[in-house]
Every structure is written in structure tokens, then in C-alpha cells.
């Protein structure tokens, strides 16, 4: 019997069953991206892609090889601005949400 389970599985199940959680995760990814934590943001986006559209479907959607997308959203990945923008857009569509940002005084 397995001793452990990857927490990613629990996260994916909750993304699929709880739209508010999916939305909150995307919100975190956007905030992290704009606040100096792009590496953490990428890994949140990876969670969301895995639990929603999947890498194969995303690859077709944005005309990039799935292998490249996996690499982009890995710890060492370095997606271009265009690719990151396209990934956010695909996740937004999958979750049926809009992203609105505002700049506030620190």
C-alpha cells in the first residue's frame, strides 16, 4: 500500500470540483507574477493547466509543442511574455473568469 500521495493530486481534484478555489489559485498566480515571484507563479499555472485544459490541449490552442509548455512551466522554465500571456488567457477561458488588476499605493 502506498505510504504517500502527491499533494498535487489533491490540488487538482479541488480545482476540478471547486471553481472558487481555481479562481483563488489563478488570483495568487497573477499576484505572484507581478510581485517578484515568477517561479512560484509558473508552478501555480502548471497546477491549473494540469487540472483544467491539460498540456496537450493547451499546446494545440497556442500552437506550441506540449513538451515546450511543460518546460516553460517547470522550475527552470523561462517562458516569453507572449507565451505567458497566452497561457493566462487559456486558463482564464477554461475557468470562465476575467482578470482585472489594479495598482494601489504600497
Amino acid at each position: 500500500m502506498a505510504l504517500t500521495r502527491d499533494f498535487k493530486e489533491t490540488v487538482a481534484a479541488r480545482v476540478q470540483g471547486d471553481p472558487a478555489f481555481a479562481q483563488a489559485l489563478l488570483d495568487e498566480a497573477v499576484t505572484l507574477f507581478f510581485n517578484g515571484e515568477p517561479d512560484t507563479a509558473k508552478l501555480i499555472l502548471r497546477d491549473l493547466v494540469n487540472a483544467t485544459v491539460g498540456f496537450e490541449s493547451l499546446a494545440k490552442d497556442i500552437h506550441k509543442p506540449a513538451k515546450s509548455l511543460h518546460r516553460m512551466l517547470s522550475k527552470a522554465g523561462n517562458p516569453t511574455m507572449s507565451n505567458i500571456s497566452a497561457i493566462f488567457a487559456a486558463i482564464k477561458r477554461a475557468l470562465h473568469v476575467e482578470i482585472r488588476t489594479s495598482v494601489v499605493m504600497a
Partner: protein
Amino acid sequence: MSDQVRELLHPDGKSHFADWFATLDAMAAAKVRVATIRMEQGAICPMWSGSAVLVNTRLTGVRVIESIWQRTG
């Protein structure tokens, strides 16, 4: 290879960490997920109660460390 956060499964097959995670509201659960990702990248963030397993996959085989994180604040 970086560390992974894995849930400890008890003999009855249950994950107490997953059970606790399910009780959190959406925003808190998202914060926990962010914290686990930060942990996997090397940060130590004892922010919540519950039990999780930090697995160091760089070692030979898999080393399982059960950690009980205490709520801060």
C-alpha cells in the same frame, strides 16, 4: 530534483492532511498551495496546522519526513 510535498497516508488509506485541506475556504486553500510550492523551492513556511510529508527525492530512494506544522500568529 527539488523536494516534493506529499501527503502521508495512514494505514486506513486516509490522508489527514487532505481532510484538513478540504476544510479550508478557497482563499486559505490557495494560500496553502502557494506555501507548499515555496517549501518545495526551499522555503520553510510553518504557517498552518496539519500533517504533511516533505519528501527529499535527491537522496537514494525516497526519504519521508513527517512534519507537524504549527499555526503561527
